[in-house]
Structures are given as C-alpha cells and as structure tokens.
C-alpha cells in the first residue's frame, strides 16, 4: 500500500506561492514539498502558503522536512503559512511549536493577506 503525495503549485502573484498537497505527508511526500518549495525560494519567492486541505495525515518525518523548509524560508526573510489543516494536524503543529514561527489559518484568503503583508 502506498500513497503518493501530489503537490501542485500556484503563483497568484509575484510575491507569494501556494503549494497544495494531496495525500499522505511522509518522508517522500515531505521531500516532494521541499523540492517545490526550494525551487520557489531559488526564484526569490519566499512567502509560501501550504494548503493541506487534501492531506489527512502528516507523520513526524514529514513534519521534520516541513521544519527544514521553515528554516530556509526564515533564513531568506520570508514567511510560511499553512491553511485548511485537519484538527489533528493543527493540534500536532501546536504541540511542536510550529505556530510560533509559521501561521495557521482556516482558509487561504487570510493566509495570503498575511503573507503579502496586508495584515500583521
């Protein structure tokens, strides 16, 4: 049994990018997200939104890769946000303290507003 994560990237404008995940975020899923995120960072896009609407489980290996992405985003003076997390994923991120460094939102719109600097 294998669940292959799909990641799609949308660039609503030059400042931000949305990465939408579909599937289980494990080690290989995390690496796929990282691959896309690092391409964006290399292009100078450092304000990233991870939309996890279609992800039901993130394991600790996947989370550790998200922490690596967070570190690189912060190193470039960027911002990282997540939206549409399941209650368990949100609780897990809170347990880990991820909410101190990234923002968690119920939907994309307020996340994008924060990423663009329109709100604090």
């Amino acid at each position, binding site marked *: *049994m*294998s*669940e292959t994560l799909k990641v799609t990237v949308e660039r609503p404008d030059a400042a931000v990018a949305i990465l939408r995940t579909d599937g*289980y975020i*494990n080690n*290989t899923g995390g690496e796929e997200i990282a691959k896309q995120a690092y391409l964006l960072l290399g292009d100078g896009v450092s304000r990233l939104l991870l939309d996890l609407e279609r992800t*039901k*489980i993130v*394991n*600790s*290996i996947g*989370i*550790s*890769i998200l*922490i*690596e992405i*967070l*570190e690189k985003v*912060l190193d470039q003076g960027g911002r990282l946000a997540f939206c549409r997390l*399941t*209650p*368990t994923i949100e*609780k*897990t991120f809170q*347990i*880990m*303290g*991820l909410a*101190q*460094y990234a923002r968690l939102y119920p939907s994309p719109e307020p996340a994008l507003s924060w990423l663009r600097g329109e709100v604090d």
Partner: protein
Amino acid sequence: MSFERREVRLTIPVAPDMEIAATAQVAALGDWIEMGRDKIDEVKLAVVEACINAFEHSHTPDHEVHIDFVAAEGGEGRVFLEVDVRDGGKGFDPSKVVHPDLPTKLKSDRKRGWGLKIIESLMDDVRIESGEHGTHIVMRKYR
C-alpha cells in the same frame, strides 16, 4: 449502552507506508465505540508514529511489527481504545529519549525525533516497556 470487549490483532511488515494499514483498524474500532472523528484521527497518528519508531529503530529480526487493538469499557464505565504496538527487536531506554523543542531543532542539522512527543501528547495514557527482547508501546485514548 455498554460495550462488549473487542480485540483485533494485526501484523504488518516493516515496509514503506505499511503503518497506514493499521489506521484502518483504528477507524473501524473507533467508529464502533462511537469515538469522535477528531479523537480517532489522533489515535491514528499516534499509531503511525509508534509503527514508524518500530520500523526505524527496532531492527526486529522477523521484519514485522505486531499491533493489538482493544476497544472496551473500563473502570467507571469509561470506554476506551487501546493499541499495543510491539516488535521483537532491540529495545531502548525511554528515560534517555530527549524531548525535542523547535527552537533547538531550527538550529540543528537533525530535525527529527518528534515521534514519542506526538504520541504522548495525543494519547491519554502511554506505557512503554522495552528490553533486549523488544518493545511494547501501549497507548490508550478514552472516548
């Protein structure tokens, strides 16, 4: 409504993504005891983490992880779902596990090590028995 005790045993191979097979059993028993959806998801993640720990650290000689699920009513009528994830590999000393924190991890090359913290945060009771003949991680969540 009182719940008759139900037990399920599952054996999964040490192989990528096999931990997901165990989550289906969590859902089935969780639904049976009418546990809420969010709590079922929390048990699922804890079981995933316990399986991954066994896969990566036990070096179990039979390349299998054994999982026992129990849904039952305990003392004072408290209904629970309990999962025992066990392997026959080399054990570890739980008292030596360093609990991670994010500020330290952000400065570290090693970002991993969150599994036990996640299990202990999501489940109501966690008991770890580990020695040279293997490890049991026994986790319980009340409905």
